[in-house]
């Protein structure tokens, strides 16, 4: 199991649940590291059912959105599924303004999201 600096990874059944260690995802260096760690779940660890749990995240920048989009593409091209949950209202507004709520599969809570895989 690789060591992660930006995320915690656990499994619920077949679903890999990712939580974030940073409350604010905005530092450029941190976002690069975050992207690399998320991508490795798909490309190195061959995870195919990923749930990103944003319960601990208070803030994210557009650069972080870019990493989520790239992750979504990687998961889809590997015939996997990516879902997101527990997104705070302000961040949900960011997804709505940029219409990324149409691209991402966003669920309210973790139980609902896992049941939807």
């Amino acid at each position: 199991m690789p060591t992660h600096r930006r995320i915690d990874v656990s499994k619920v059944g077949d679903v890999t649940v990712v939580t974030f260690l940073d409350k604010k995802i905005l530092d450029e260096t941190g976002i690069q590291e975050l992207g690399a760690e998320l991508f490795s779940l798909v490309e190195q660890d061959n995870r195919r059912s990923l749930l990103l749990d944003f319960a601990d995240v208070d803030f994210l920048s557009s650069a972080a959105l870019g990493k989520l989009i790239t992750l979504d593409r990687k998961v889809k091209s590997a015939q996997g599924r990516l879902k997101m949950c527990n997104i705070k209202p302000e961040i949900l507004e960011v997804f709505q303004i940029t219409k990324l709520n149409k691209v991402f599969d966003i669920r309210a809570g973790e139980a609902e999201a896992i049941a939807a895989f």
Partner: protein
Amino acid sequence: MTDHISAAGWQRTFELKSDRGASRAVMDVLLEQLGAHDWEPSDIFAIHLAAEEALVNAIIHGNKLDSTKKVHVDCRVSRDHVRIEITDEGQGFDPASVPDCTLEERLEAPSGRGVMLMRSFMTRIAYNAKGNSVVLEKSRAAAAG
């Protein structure tokens, strides 16, 4: 960096190096002042996001991380108005040339959302003609509406 505090509010100018993470020096103080001037958490989130996007644009896209170039920031916070002016020493850009990231064919593009988020979360944003300076403003009356 000198604070000016009056009945009209707080004002400070900053001169930042073009380093990744340099925005932190502004954001820590700005967030503290927004709280001190009783701005609502949802407004603070909005101003935080817009200012962060503009600072990152200035440092990375404007000055291209050139250590000889600075980013000049002027922040003014009162109870009912926030104004942040951010100027880099780069070539400038045409904000109208940034494609609309909400178009179907652009939805999955990994970049190009910063300016849209600034426009959405602030009452007013305006670039100078050269495109190397942006003014972000938020009014509490509009924020409450």
